[in-house]
């Protein structure tokens, strides 16, 4: 399982890759067969090559050089880094995968041995991918690993299927690899412990289309009854394949996997299976240092001649075989004889477990009920039923869908390393012991680099493992990009050509290290390795940190790649959708929609919301389509909008709603602007803001402690300044209109008298009444400024300043009168802003001569004094013996534009009538409303 997890990233990528290619389909077909024996084909690999640690090492030499070996990470987290998927693992596997797709039969050519090993790997990955489509991923894989455990039981089942084609029996799968070293998978100890005889059985290459089993295995267990029983059980699982898999036929093929039947046959093994199922990882063996399989290897290389028959047989039946059908018929015929109660229980238990694996939130009792009452003993039927009725009774409490999910794990883990080990400036030098350990680890990671180089770099980077490893990885990645033949011809390693070195480079802040490092002629053969416990805590932390980071990066890269493929696919199919706002073309995933289904790109929505929230737009995020009255559902907003905009949006919306609901009860603290609701009859406003806590008068906003027994006016009179301020505030208020709905203050700067607030309410600027549309205003034509003779309605166009000025002056006069009365003439102080001469209103330039035709004898525009300003001379530089000192760039002299240009933007405003036939370039540009 650990292995599976480790490969996962690679695989996803791989499957994306091939999605593009035409071989996708082939692989799908291949998958039909593949699935049934995914375990089988992976296991033999494991068995044969138990000790090898670095999978890529011997497969491909130049990849090997670079590959950082992820092995020691494995025990900690199942799916930690496969050396960054996008770098090379992906390539390798992708190659393998597609190969597997193209030629289904395993090649017997010894030269292809390595490839086929790879191919096996690739296929293994494929299985994983496919089965990982659903929540059942762990289970199925566990099944796969578990399979060899209950030893003989598989035999009979195989035999049954074999009966149809009693072909050459013994099928040692992996043996075709000429070098034993080729297979590089680590062995899980369980597998290693298997007796050889059984291994052979296990190794049947079901994925190649034959479920044919070595005859010798069958002999032991061939008792008739047990065979029948097996058959029955073998038939059974056929009805409940993994529903997580997409298509029916594949599911069927899956169903014929012998593993399925096996647990039922033996309750003990069933239990064992159950226990194993959630288990996170199988313990991995200690990493082997030199990749050469030790003598302890339980499965020595198979005799080469065995490859022959297999290859031959493969060629005979390259197509996918469906032995399952036969077994199914057999099984069904046998059911009545063998249906024991205990078995049914087991079956129910298994069904429940399998269902639970797929629907983790369904109540167990409910499944049981379904099985017993509705008598659906088919996992497919069960799952379909649950899918179609998603309101099945759920388990209480939060269900963790996949406890070993990398997403969950990474969340937890990110909390652990708070230090950023990639930030050089924050790293302190480590002590000698850590240094040595880190160097050893690095030497194991980069076997092609000399230890001096590694130590030098490590030393330069203060002995920190993570940052050094990252620098090395970056350098190697760069090298890979640069080298022309990345695909991996292993001859290159031998040549010491120009690509046999990497340029180690580290740059961060003002630290800059650079060195050219040549690869070793031969890989390092010996290095020290540590297990988790013996590592010093700081080194261990860094190692984990690095793995975490690399994994995140790989995940991110995969994600980006997936998106890119998605978009490319859309593009290729011409399925891109146009955003109705910006005309951009996007994949469907990049779009968001209003409640009515109008599609917009996410960016447009973000900008739209930004405009609404921070700009002066409406706070309501209605659909951008004019004719659509829907708004964007909150779910879409939450999905698309960045957090700050979303928060602001909610904030503003809430505020406006409160203000609209209770405009007259909403009081804001005059000191801190804290809003609060206050009953209408309460005068004293105590600010609830804990940092303010001031008590003020609601009406005059004076401090309450000064107010005491005084009325607002008395309080204001006490202080001359305050009095004046209060009057002046009144004057200001005369200019401000308050929205009747939300209370927002409005000032008209230009435009007509129909004011609309951002909340959508409309009011007349003149009479301050709430209006709707233009009906409020006089529609009769009349001369400007003159009152209408036909009605008494407000006029739509008035000069706002005049009306307000009138009111303000009234207030001012009143206050001044009052003061004069009180204090007498001598102490009179002016209220309001200092008197300034009213700005002489510039008469609007009447461009259009009326009556039109005759009036041509207007005063001409005075000729502009076309005097060119003198050219400024270039600055004189100090000269020494005619040699200019301090030679610098001499600025070019400024040449003012020629004055006879038609449009002069700096032209002073001239109060003269313009020539009538001058094009309309007069006046300032109309003010824009942005």
């Amino acid at each position: 399982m650990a292995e599976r997890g480790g490969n996962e990233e690679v695989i996803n990528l791989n499957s994306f890759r091939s999605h593009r290619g035409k071989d996708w389909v082939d692989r799908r077909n291949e998958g039909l067969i593949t699935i049934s024996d995914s375990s089988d084909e992976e296991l033999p690999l494991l068995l044969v090559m138990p000790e090898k640690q670095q999978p890529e090492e011997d497969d491909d030499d130049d990849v090997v050089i670079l590959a950082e070996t992820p092995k020691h990470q494995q025990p900690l987290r199942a799916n930690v880094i496969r050396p960054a998927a996008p770098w090379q693992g992906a390539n390798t596997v992708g190659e393998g995968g597609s190969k597997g797709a193209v030629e289904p039969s395993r090649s017997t050519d010894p030269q292809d041995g390595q490839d086929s090993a790879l191919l096996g790997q690739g296929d293994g990955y494929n299985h994983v991918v496919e089965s990982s489509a659903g929540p059942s991923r762990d289970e199925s894989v566990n099944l796969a690993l578990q399979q060899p455990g209950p030893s003989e039981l598989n035999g009979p089942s195989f035999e049954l299927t074999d009966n149809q084609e009693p072909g050459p029996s013994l099928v040692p799968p992996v043996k075709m690899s000429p070098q034993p070293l080729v297979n590089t998978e680590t062995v899980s100890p369980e597998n290693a412990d298997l007796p050889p005889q059984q291994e052979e059985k296990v190794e049947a290459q079901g994925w190649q289309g034959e479920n044919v089993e070595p005859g010798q295995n069958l002999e032991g267990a061939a008792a008739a009854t047990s065979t029948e029983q097996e058959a029955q059980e073998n038939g059974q699982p056929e009805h409940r394949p993994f529903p997580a898999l997409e298509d029916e036929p594949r599911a069927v093929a899956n169903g014929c996997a012998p593993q399925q039947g096996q647990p039922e046959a033996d309750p003990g093994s069933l239990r064992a299976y159950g226990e194993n199922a959630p288990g996170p990882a199988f313990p991995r063996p200690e990493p082997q240092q030199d990749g050469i399989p030790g003598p302890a290897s339980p499965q020595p290389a198979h005799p080469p001649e065995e490859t022959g028959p297999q290859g031959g047989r493969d060629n005979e039946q390259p197509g996918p075989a469906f032995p399952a059908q036969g077994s199914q018929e057999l099984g069904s015929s046998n059911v009545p004889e063998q249906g024991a109660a205990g078995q049914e229980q087991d079956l129910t238990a298994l069904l429940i477990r399998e269902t639970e694996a797929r629907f983790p939130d369904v109540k167990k009792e409910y499944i049981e009920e379904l099985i017993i009452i509705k008598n659906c003993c088919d996992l497919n039927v069960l799952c379909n039923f649950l899918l179609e009725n998603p309101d099945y009774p759920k388990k209480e409490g939060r269900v963790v869908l996949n406890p070993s999910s990398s997403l969950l794990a990474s969340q937890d883990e990110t909390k652990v390393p708070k230090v950023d080990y990639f930030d050089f400036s924050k790293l302190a030098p480590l002590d000698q012991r850590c240094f040595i350990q880190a160097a050893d680890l690095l030497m194991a990671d980069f076997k092609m680099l000399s230890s001096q180089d590694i130590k030098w770099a490590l030393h330069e980077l203060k002995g920190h493992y993570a940052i050094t490893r990252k620098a090395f990885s970056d350098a190697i990645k760069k090298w890979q990009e640069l080298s022309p033949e990345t695909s991996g011809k292993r001859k290159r390693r031998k040549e010491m050509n120009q690509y046999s070195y990497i340029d180690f480079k580290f740059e961060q802040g003002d630290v800059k290290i650079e060195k050219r490092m040549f690869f070793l002629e031969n890989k390092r053969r010996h290095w020290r390795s540590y297990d988790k416990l013996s590592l010093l805590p700081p080194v261990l932390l860094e190692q984990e940190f690095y793995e975490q980071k690399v994994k995140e990066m790989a995940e991110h890269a995969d994600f980006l790649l997936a998106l890119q493929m998605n978009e490319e696919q859309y593009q290729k199919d011409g399925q891109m959708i146009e955003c109705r706002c910006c005309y951009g073309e996007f994949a469907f995933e990049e779009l968001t929609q209003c409640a009515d289904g109008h599609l917009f790109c996410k960016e447009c929505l973000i900008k739209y919301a930004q405009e609404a929230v921070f700009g002066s737009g409406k706070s309501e995020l209605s659909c951008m389509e004019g004719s659509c009255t829907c708004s964007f559902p909150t779910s879409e907003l939450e999905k698309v909008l960045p957090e700050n905009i979303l928060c602001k949006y909610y904030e503003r919306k809430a505020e406006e709603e409160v203000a609209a609901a209770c405009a007259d009860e909403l009081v804001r603290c005059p000191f801190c602007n804290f809003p609060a609701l206050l009953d209408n009859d309460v005068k004293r406003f105590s600010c609830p803001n804990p940092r303010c806590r001031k008590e003020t008068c609601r009406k005059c906003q004076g401090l309450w402690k000064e107010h005491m027994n005084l009325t607002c006016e008395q309080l204001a009179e006490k202080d001359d300044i305050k009095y004046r301020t209060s009057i002046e505030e009144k004057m200001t208020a005369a200019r401000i209109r308050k929205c009747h709905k939300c209370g927002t203050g409005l000032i008209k700067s230009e435009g007509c008298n129909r004011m609309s607030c951002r909340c959508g309410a409309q009011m007349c600027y003149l009479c301050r009444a709430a209006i709707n549309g233009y009906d409020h205003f006089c529609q009769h034509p009349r001369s400007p400024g003159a009152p209408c003779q036909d009605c008494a309605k407000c006029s739509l166009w008035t000069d706002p300043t005049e009306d307000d000025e009138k009111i303000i002056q009234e207030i001012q006069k009143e206050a001044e009168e009052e003061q004069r009365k009180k204090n007498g003439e001598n102490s009179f102080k002016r209220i309001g802003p200092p008197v300034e001469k009213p700005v002489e209103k510039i008469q609007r330039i009447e461009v259009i001569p009326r009556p039109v035709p005759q009036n041509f004898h207007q005063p001409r525009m005075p000729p502009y004094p076309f005097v060119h300003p003198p050219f400024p001379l270039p600055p004189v530089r100090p000269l020494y013996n005619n040699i200019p000192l301090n030679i610098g760039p001499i600025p070019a002299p400024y040449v003012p534009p020629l004055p006879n240009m038609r449009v002069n933007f700096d032209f002073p405003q001239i109060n003269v009538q313009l020539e009538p036939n001058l094009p309309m370039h007069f006046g300032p540009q109309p003010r824009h409303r942005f």
Partner: protein
Amino acid sequence: MQPPPWRRVPGGPSHPLPVPQELEEVRRWEGTRDVRPLDRNVLRWEGLLLPNNPPYNAGAFRFELTFSPHHPLVPPCATLRTPIYHPSVDPEGRVCQPLTTHEHWAPTTRAVQVLQDLLLLLDSPAPQRVLRPDLARELQEHPEEFWHRAREHTQLHAEPRPDLPGP
């Protein structure tokens, strides 16, 4: 590495402004001619409006359409740069166009729609939505006089129509 399109910073420079497409759209419309960005600024267009109805159809009227940098989320603003004798266009060329107010504007409204609205306004001088009440009054009370003046004004100020052979 160039950020893939789905990673672009919202509001970043790479976000497509629909202006070029809209320009194409406007150019396909026969109500306008010679629409082009002003001073190489794609956010400011100028062009000629060709009214359909007399008295304005004797000439073409130069308009200017200014887009916000936040286009299309913020409405653009259309003005006329050729003087026109029209109750709904003020002497400075401003037009009362509810379509381009914040409350009526929808981001999916197109520039061509704004111009169509403007042309409709020119084609049908009505005493409502009046920016020059004196002209509206004249139109109401002495329509013949108004039409006459409008025609003469058009002949005097409007640019020659590019779609008609010159006089």
